């Protein structure tokens, strides 16, 4: 058993080195998924070749084995066998082609939309009471500063919302501010897109860093107005537990 296993291992390592390091000296490097596919094929072939006696394989495969070897076959079964034999390599070839065919699509973006906030913004409570006046003031400030992007209807469809990737958040969608605590919004509004950590791709965000223009008091009131206007309520600490 030791001999064949060692041979298989050497074969696999050799194949890997060839695919991963030697081929790229001459052509474009192979994607990992294709290297994996080729190694799997090599491994399966080697296993069959080295480690099994034909008899046991035949017993194990039974009718499948008879189908594959074509013993005593004619007509439809014979044709089907040839079809299988032709189709399998073609399938592998086709997989190779679709993997390598030049793509005009830009790289996939895995942007984290709600990354963890910096520690100092965790668990802050809104220091202003939810009075009708405060909510009213918040809505007025929202209309002035936020609605061009996030929309007068809180739906992310303001007149200045186009052309941005990612687009301005839609607050009426239950997936945005309803999932978040007020302290999280306070962080996002104060520090803006540029305050995001790397996994959230701060270089792409058009969300302004409002701390340079708006006092904290306004930001807290805007948060109130935003939840009220969008018909959502913030996630609370109790839900978090």
């Amino acid at each position, binding site marked *: 058993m030791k001999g064949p296993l060692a041979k298989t291992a050497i074969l696999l390592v050799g194949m890997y080195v060839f695919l991963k390091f030697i081929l790229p000296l001459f*052509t474009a490097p*192979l*994607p990992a*998924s*294709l290297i*994996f*596919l080729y190694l*799997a*094929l*090599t*491994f*399966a*072939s080697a*296993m*069959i*070749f080295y480690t*099994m*006696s*034909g008899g046991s*394989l035949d017993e*194990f495969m039974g009718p499948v*084995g008879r189908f594959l*070897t074509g013993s005593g076959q004619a007509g439809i079964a014979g044709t089907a066998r040839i079809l299988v*034999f032709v189709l399998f390599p*073609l399938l*592998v*070839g086709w*997989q*190779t*082609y*679709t*993997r390598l*065919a030049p793509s005009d*699509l*830009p790289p*996939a973006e895995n942007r984290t939309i709600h990354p963890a906030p910096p520690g100092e913004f965790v668990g802050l409570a809104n220091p202003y009471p939810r009075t009708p006046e405060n909510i009213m003031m918040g809505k007025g400030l929202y209309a002035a500063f936020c609605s*061009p*992007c996030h929309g007068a209807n809180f739906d992310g469809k303001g*007149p*200045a*919302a*186009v*052309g*941005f*990737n990612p*687009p301005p958040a839609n607050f009426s969608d239950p997936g945005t501010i309803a999932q978040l605590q007020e302290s999280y919004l306070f962080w996002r509004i104060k*520090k803006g*897109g*540029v*305050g995001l*950590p*790397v996994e959230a*791709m*701060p*270089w*792409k965000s*058009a969300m*302004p*860093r409002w701390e340079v*223009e708006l006092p904290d008091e306004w930001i807290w009131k805007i948060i109130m107005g935003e939840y009220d206007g969008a018909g959502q309520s913030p996630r609370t600490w109790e839900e978090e537990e």
Partner: protein
Amino acid sequence: MGYKKIFNVALGLTLMVTGVGASCVFASNPPPEGETGSVAVRLFLTEGAVPADDPNAAVWNTIEPAEFKLAPQVHWPDRIQEVTVKSVKVRGVHNGEDMAILLEYADPSEDAADAAAVEFMVGDKMAHFAHGQEMLQIEGGDVNIWYWKKEHGKATDMTAKGFKTLRPQENQDVSATGAWQDGTWRVVFSRSLQTGDALDVQVTPGEWRNVAFAFWDGEIVDGDVKEKGSQKAISSWWYLRAEPPPDNSIYGYVVLGIVLAAGFEFFLVRKIRRGNES
């Protein structure tokens, strides 16, 4: 008969199926994001000279444009709530040495202060699309801005890293020509793909770059230019890539895959046949 052997066959077959399955999964590309408009500018590979200073060259009409929507700049003061240029069509070509990018957009009047700009990230560091403004948790890089203004009649090759840092570069590598007709500007920017200047974007065929756009309507309204400075139409980052030369190695890999699969079949059948004979 040995259980080990059965196990081995099962293992081999499973691996094979996973291999094919896994590659199927990896092969499905993600859908492009953004339902409206394009996500990328493609610089088509051509032979011969690129139309470096001709916005009306015939070759432009053979190229499918990418289209990007533009928003009034309300990110930082001075803001503007309404802009003239609402979207831009972008076409590009390169020949392995030089590239040319054509911006086509609607602007009802031709004015001395009409202007257009293309912005790129430079090097490996990510830069914010708003003039490479400071990011708080990561260190950003420079942006390279190609700026064209009607009354200048040329391009200015500029660098910025943060607000109020925009400045013309020492090495001016970009040229630009604009032509206005019937309410449409066509502005062509051109440069060599590589410049060797660390402040410039270097365009390598096959590699993705980040690009953004800005436009100013220079019409005089009540004695003042309508859009200037930070009052402009903008986009955030989109993608740009110079098309790589065709790569034939792919067919070699297809053949390799077919040979390996056929080899697998061959070994399998031979083994079973031998078993039958014994």
